[in-house]
């Protein structure tokens, strides 16, 4: 089953080609086998000459970025965009959500719907639709929201995933907080799952983990593409009996978006190292999983600077509050493991008995409150005791969802994007609560002084619409902060 991607605005049309680059490399590698075939079916259709054409529609209100993306894809020699899959206008949306949503969206509705329809018809079966956009500008946010609405109307039974890029907190656009609040409030009603990347976080990954000196938007987009592709590439669920998942978006939404009030998903991948050091690094599943689990609990997105002091509160301490003591409570988690020896990685409950077998355990990972963590690696022995990841522990999750329901895992033995082993965690948790709260706080302050409102009202948005959006998002914030 296939996913059709709609790339919207400058950000969407810059992240999109990076994503297809990563995906297509795997498609080529797994030329003859089932994995490659699954990748190809999911993301590309093949022309009679065997070229890979991305199942994507490019939409922007000005032509420069799309031109660049299309020619860049064509130059890769591996894949390209369809000749007639693009739509651009001459003049942008001026960073104005209302301009995108009320003017440009409706004006070009028919053309865009037609483009999507053609892409959908080329699929044997549609797995779902993914919209890639930013929330700070005018086109990605405004037109993107309108297009999502049209998609929802036209394909009421398909899964829709929105991938959003949140801007730097210190601002790229002055009205970015308004645009973000309006977008999120509307998308919450329309989307099945909202997967978020924050520029600030990805920037830190680029500078601290990947050691990039002068970080450009291309670097940021590459990291986003790596993380997103690691989620979307084919994988095997526990009960799939060897057949690659045919309903990825549905399974993602089913695993994670369990309640209509909780739809915000964040992604975390490990390891992430500069390509120059990859040849010298070896990874083990226990170590990767241990780090990933702590990254989840302490709400860090990098292997560096993890706070090992944070731990889930004991049963009696379950109260709802805004990230009390730094612990990040999850609703649901999806762990995706790709690479060598992936079936030996155990991710369930902690086996406390392992603490007492010092002689025969070759690899021992234990999690003890108080910061001690020892991991002994001895890979000489072929059979090693499977180590534990502890993702199914009930203390990590809310009380009203049993932890077996809250946790799922997918695996794929095929290595991903040059990493021998790669672990990705998609989580529906309180991780995005702080940035969301900051964003709404700033927008509300601006709204209280009525600044910039006339710019939005010229295009048909009223103060009432703003208030409705603020109310919706405050509701989301309240729901997440009261998780217990």
């Amino acid at each position, binding site marked *: 089953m296939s996913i059709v991607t709609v790339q919207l605005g400058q950000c969407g049309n810059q992240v999109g080609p990076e994503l297809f680059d990563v995906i297509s490399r795997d498609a080529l590698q797994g030329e003859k086998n089932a994995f490659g075939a699954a990748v190809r079916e999911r993301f590309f259709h093949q022309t009679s000459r065997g070229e890979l054409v991305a199942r994507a529609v490019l939409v922007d209100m000005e032509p420069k970025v799309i031109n660049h993306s299309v020619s860049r894809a064509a130059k890769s020699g591996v894949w390209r965009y369809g000749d007639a899959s693009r739509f651009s206008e001459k003049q942008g949306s001026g960073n*104005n959500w209302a301009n995108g949503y009320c003017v440009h969206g409706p004006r070009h509705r028919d053309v865009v719907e037609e483009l999507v329809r053609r892409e959908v018809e080329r699929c044997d079966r549609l797995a779902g639709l993914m919209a890639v956009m930013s929330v700070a500008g005018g086109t990605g946010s405004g037109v993107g929201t309108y297009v999502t609405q049209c998609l929802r109307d036209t394909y009421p039974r398909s899964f829709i995933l929105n991938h959003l890029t949140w801007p730097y907190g210190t601002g790229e*656009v002055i009205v970015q907080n308004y645009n973000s609040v309006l977008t999120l409030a509307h998308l919450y009603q329309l989307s099945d799952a909202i997967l978020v990347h924050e520029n600030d976080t990805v920037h830190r990954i680029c500078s601290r983990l990947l050691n990039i000196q002068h970080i450009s938007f291309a670097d940021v987009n590459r990291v986003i593409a790596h993380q997103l592709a690691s989620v979307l590439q084919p994988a095997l669920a526990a009960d799939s009996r060897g057949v690659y998942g045919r309903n990825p978006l549905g399974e993602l939404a089913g695993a994670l978006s369990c309640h209509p009030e909780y739809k915000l998903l964040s992604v975390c991948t490990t390891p992430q190292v500069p390509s120059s050091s990859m040849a010298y690094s070896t990874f083990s599943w226990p170590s990767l999983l241990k780090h990933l689990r702590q990254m989840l609990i302490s709400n860090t997105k990098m292997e560096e600077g993890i706070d090992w002091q944070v731990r889930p509160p004991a049963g009696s301490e379950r109260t709802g509050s805004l990230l009390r003591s730094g612990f990040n409570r999850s609703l649901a988690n999806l762990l995706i493991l790709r690479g060598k020896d992936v079936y030996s990685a155990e991710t369930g409950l902690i086996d406390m008995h392992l603490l007492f077998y010092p002689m025969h355990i070759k690899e021992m990972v234990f999690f003890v409150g108080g910061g001690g963590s020892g991991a002994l690696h001895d890979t000489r022995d072929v059979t090693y005791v499977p180590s534990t990841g502890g993702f199914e522990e009930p203390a990590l999750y809310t009380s009203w969802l049993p932890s077996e329901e809250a946790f799922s895992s997918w695996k794929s033995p095929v290595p991903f994007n040059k990493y021998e082993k790669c672990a990705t965690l998609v989580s529906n948790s309180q991780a995005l609560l702080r940035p969301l709260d900051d964003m709404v706080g700033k927008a*509300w302050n601006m709204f209280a002084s009525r600044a910039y409102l006339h*710019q939005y009202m010229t295009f048909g948005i009223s103060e009432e619409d703003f208030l409705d959006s*603020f109310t919706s998002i*405050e509701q989301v914030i309240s729901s997440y902060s009261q998780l217990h």
Partner: protein
Amino acid sequence: MTQSIVVHVGQCGNQIGCRFWDLALREHAHVNKEGLYDEALGSFFRNVDSREINGGACAVGGRIQQLKARAVLVDMEEGVVNKILQGPLREMFDSTQLLTDVSGSGNNWAVGHMTYGSVYREQIVDKLRKAAEHCDCLQCFFLIHSMGGGTGSGLGTKVLSLLNEEFPDVCRIVSSIYPSAEDDVVTSPYNSVLAMMELTEHAHCVMPVENQSLVEIVNKIKQMSHTRRPESVIRGDSAVISGQGGLSGTEKPFDAMNNIVANLLLNITSSARFDGSLNMDLNEIAMNLVPFPRLHYLLPSLTPLYTLADVSVPTRRLDQMFSDAFSKDHQLIRANPKRGLYLACALMVRGNVQMSDLRRNIERLKPSLPFVSWNQEGWKTGLCSVPPVGHSHSLLALANNTCVMSTFMELRERFTKLYRKKAHLHHYLHVEGMEQSLFSEAVGSLSSLIEEYHLLDATKGKLMPDAPRLCIAR
């Protein structure tokens, strides 16, 4: 790509306009080595093959045949426009773009606005329409005029209101030259205040420029170039006042000052014309910098003013460029932005500057610049990869700052000094359609504008509490 039309009205407007087209050609000649008519050129120029019938407009991509400026020139006396038509730029304008009369407006806003405004209304609208029809996707009208005289001030603001009527969706960006206190036109306060009322009503953005500041900048550069120290030799074509390399040969008086304003317009449109990693379109300027509709007066400042002849540019120079943009000496009106409160600020960088440099400098400068409480991170940034002629990089800062109210208060004072005595009032009241109430309306509009800025300014330095958030009942 979008197109813009430049309208220049009055003597000052046309002189600046002439410098603008000269410098625009110089800039494009510098960048466009192949002689092809590309999209960037198309934003300001049409390509016309006059051998063909019915106009012969050529599409983008072909060779340059003959470039015609997307401009409309209006003046009520012929001297300046005739000089342009006899000079090296004569091929750029054809007769359908010109509107002239013989007798001038006598430094009288009412004559310009009411008399000529009604007589020439049809013709003006017609010429604007024709210019707009040549455009594929018209984004913006640039209006250049002065505030102190009669034509630029009166007829110029009439043109502005006609633009609002006929093309309400097209952005209107105005460069207005404000008279200095020692202006030789006695009635300039009247003309300026009457024009201000129109600007506040009908313009999307106004960039006020004061003659006195331009004089000071020119003097500073001339002083720099007169000291004979070898390390301070300025590169000839780099000074913001220089027209070297353009078409006009000799430099006329006022040219140096006019070049500064022309450079301002070139830098504002650079991101819309050329490529860059973070494009800033013209409609984004109005969107981000104008939080309340009447408070649309944006203070421009340009750096660097010149490049020294020796080439190497260490990072310190780059940082110095950012600091200079916020110093009093580089502002184009005589106000100190650090004394006022910033409502919003846009930085348009041209040339070889990275995103990390930009972010570093914003972090560095933020503590010393007071921003309004609800817009603490009110920065809009744009990166264009093509630098201006003679520089490796440059910065244009556009700030919406409450210090502009001091300029307006001085203007109001000069107005009141005359109006109290009813001096020269009869010249205005003689004009058909002019009434005394218009004067009180104009000064009232100015006063309420000053009051709006003042209210915001008063919050400076005070710790404003965050607005209480919505509470969700559980």
